[in-house]
């Protein structure tokens, strides 16, 4: 899929920095995202130290060795990369971005590279190279689309992931992500949005009242229920921003009667570790495991969120017991399963608008969840349209890889990162765009706003909440207060 690169004016706007000149000077690092103060002395030395430590305790060396031996530099990834397609700047070609780190590896960690470097006295890692990496690795949205198109099978996203991890070890990581993670792992509230438990309970009680009023059904958010089948862990920002998604999920559980619960000990699926540090990834995943154990739950149920689902699904087994780890499922898998079993009914006359579905990269790229939400939508949406390419080949919303949480780069995300997506949404002509991912939702809302596209972005369960039909037995009788129902029974 091709697009015209952005104009110089758009470029100026997209790359405009909000950082103060004195901070840029002090940190000696010209990037667009805010960074907390960090040690600026001997960055190359510390970078190499961190690189060596990570290589020692990981499996990256295998991949790096393989890549430097066989990279053929065909340039096919360029055509796939939405960032390069928008900027037209060859420095945004995935293969070039990967080479930034591969060249450091080759020079400092392979015998041939070390000998050549010593003999020629060249190629030593410099501050300028670190500057280039710090900029380049955070231009990427980690969508992993280039990986599908590489004939040599090189996983550029893996290299970007590793590059960010090493940079974070020397203090170079977007402040937005670090501050949220600090609150999640070490703060009083234990979640990235800093929601205290009483506020969470208040919010959910308020939603319960709302749902009773709207649907005439007692829909509950069970809290701290032990031995539940599903321990529900959404992206915690949903509690602030995606009430309708949560209501839809609660409605589904009310209709099926399955046991589920939210734990007050830990309720945040967001895992920025997937975007910048394996160490953080491990710590967050272990919190999910601990809370599920505390509640004696049977399955971990992740809400509508791509990266939360991927980090739990793929890394709970890694860090918490391999085959014996709790099974992880995404809420769309659950809803699809119970719908197939005939436990859900939808009113096909409620949603008449043109609906399209956006695949979040983190759940679609590896062909995990692609068909289930589509089957659900087609079951009750009269006017479903498909955007191409879709599924495993989908185009990223432009806010992937943690970039959505970096507010200061919004112009970059909506003019460059999301350019191809904006074209795609316009072409589809949809009125409702379903994006079952907290990151995608936020990015797509900002994208349609900045690009002036007339389209509403929401989650899958927002729409399910509108269309769901409850069994008569669940409908609360008129003029009877819900408190009295139990007594009547």
């Amino acid at each position: 899929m091709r697009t015209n690169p952005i104009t110089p004016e758009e470029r100026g706007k997209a790359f405009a920095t909000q950082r103060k000149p004195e901070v840029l000077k002090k940190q000696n690092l010209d990037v667009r995202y805010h960074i907390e103060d960090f040690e600026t002395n001997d960055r190359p030395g510390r970078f190499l130290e961190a690189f060596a430590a990570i290589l020692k305790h990981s499996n990256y060396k295998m991949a790096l060795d393989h890549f430097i031996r066989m990279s053929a530099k065909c340039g096919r990834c360029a055509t796939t990369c939405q960032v390069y397609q928008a900027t037209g700047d060859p420095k945004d070609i995935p293969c070039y971005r990967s080479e930034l780190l591969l060249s450091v590896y080759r020079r400092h960690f392979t015998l041939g590279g070390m000998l050549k470097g010593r003999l020629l006295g060249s190629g030593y890692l410099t501050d300028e190279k670190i500057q280039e990496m710090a900029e380049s690795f955070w231009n990427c949205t980690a969508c992993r689309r280039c990986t599908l198109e590489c004939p040599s099978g090189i996983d550029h996203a893996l290299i970007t992931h590793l590059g960010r991890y090493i940079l974070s070890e020397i203090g170079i990581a977007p402040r937005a992500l670090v501050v949220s993670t600090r609150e999640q792992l070490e703060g009083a509230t234990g979640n990235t949005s800093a929601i205290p438990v009483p506020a969470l309970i208040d919010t959910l009680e308020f939603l319960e009242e709302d749902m009773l009023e709207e649907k005439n059904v007692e829909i509950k958010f069970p809290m701290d229920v032990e031995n539940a089948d599903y321990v529900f862990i959404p992206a915690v920002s949903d509690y602030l921003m995606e009430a309708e998604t949560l209501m839809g999920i609660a409605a589904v559980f009310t209709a099926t009667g399955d046991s589920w619960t939210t734990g007050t000990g830990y309720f945040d699926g967001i895992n920025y570790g997937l975007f910048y540090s394996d160490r953080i990834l491990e710590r967050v995943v272990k919190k999910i495991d601990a809370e599920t154990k505390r509640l004696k739950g049977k399955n971990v149920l992740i809400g509508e969120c791509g990266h939360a689902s991927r980090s739990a699904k793929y890394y709970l087994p890694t860090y918490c017991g391999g085959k014996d780890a709790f099974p992880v499922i995404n809420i769309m898998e659950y809803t699809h399963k119970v719908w197939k079993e005939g436990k859900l009914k939808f009113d096909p006359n409620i949603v008449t608008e043109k609906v399209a579905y956006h695949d979040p990269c983190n759940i679609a790229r590896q062909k995990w969840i692609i068909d289930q939400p589509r089957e659900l939508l087609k079951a009750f949406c009269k006017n479903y349209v498909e955007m191409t390419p879709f599924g495993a080949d989908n185009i990223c919303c432009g806010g992937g890889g943690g970039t959505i949480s970096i507010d200061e780069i919004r112009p970059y995300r909506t003019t460059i990162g999301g350019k191809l997506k904006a074209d795609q949404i316009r072409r589809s002509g949809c009125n409702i765009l379903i994006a079952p991912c907290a990151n995608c939702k936020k990015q797509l809302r900002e994208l349609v706003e900045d690009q002036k596209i007339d389209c509403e972005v929401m989650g899958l369960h927002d729409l399910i909440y509108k269309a769901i039909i409850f069994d008569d037995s669940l409908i609360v009788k008129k003029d009877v207060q819900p408190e009295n129902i139990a007594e009547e029974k």
Partner: protein
Amino acid sequence: MDSLLEFARGPLFRFSIIIMILGLARLIALDLYSIFRAHQKAGDKSLPWGLIISRSIEWLFPVKRIAHNRPIYSIFSILFHIGLLLVPLFLFAHIQLWEKGIGFSWPALPYNWAYWLTISTIIFAVLLIIGRIFNKSSSFISRKQDFLWPVLLLIPFVTGFVCSHLNLSPSNYRLFMLIHILSGDMIFLLMPFTKIAHCVLMPLSQVICTLAWKFPADTDDKVCTTLNKKGAAV
């Protein structure tokens, strides 16, 4: 000249082939060992074999994904690779040499096929070089070896074609044949040490990429210890 020719197709050829085989075998062995070690270290040992195998096959016979991404370049590249693989292995004259050298032979390509495959390989190699020079994104990411390899690969094809299809004087014939064999030897020698290693490493790419995402179980603790960051705040 004759002794040089004999040296090129005798000892030098055998040496090149041995280096190529040992070098490529070493690369495969290193990769396989890394895969084994990584799998041992990984916290989650399950691998999606279905996806790995289907994606590996997809790229060994890369027809599925050519249409929507640089289609012309991709088609040129595929046709170039076909000639590049078939002609050296299945040309009648080469098979005779193989038989002399290693004692057994296999069916040869029909003469016409070999003729057209040689021509197509030369044409597509030239087109790929032109494409690399003039395509903005390709030329930007290219290293020296990316420009030199197609040129080096062209030499034996052109000289081989000249030798077998043009009426040359015996001395010219020997000269072209010498260049033909020397360039061939050089290709074999360089294969394990340059990007051409992809000829044997490519089938392992998908499993390596998948496995590389399977991290060891206790990275946090170990990396913290090594970097002296134990107990440090996030």
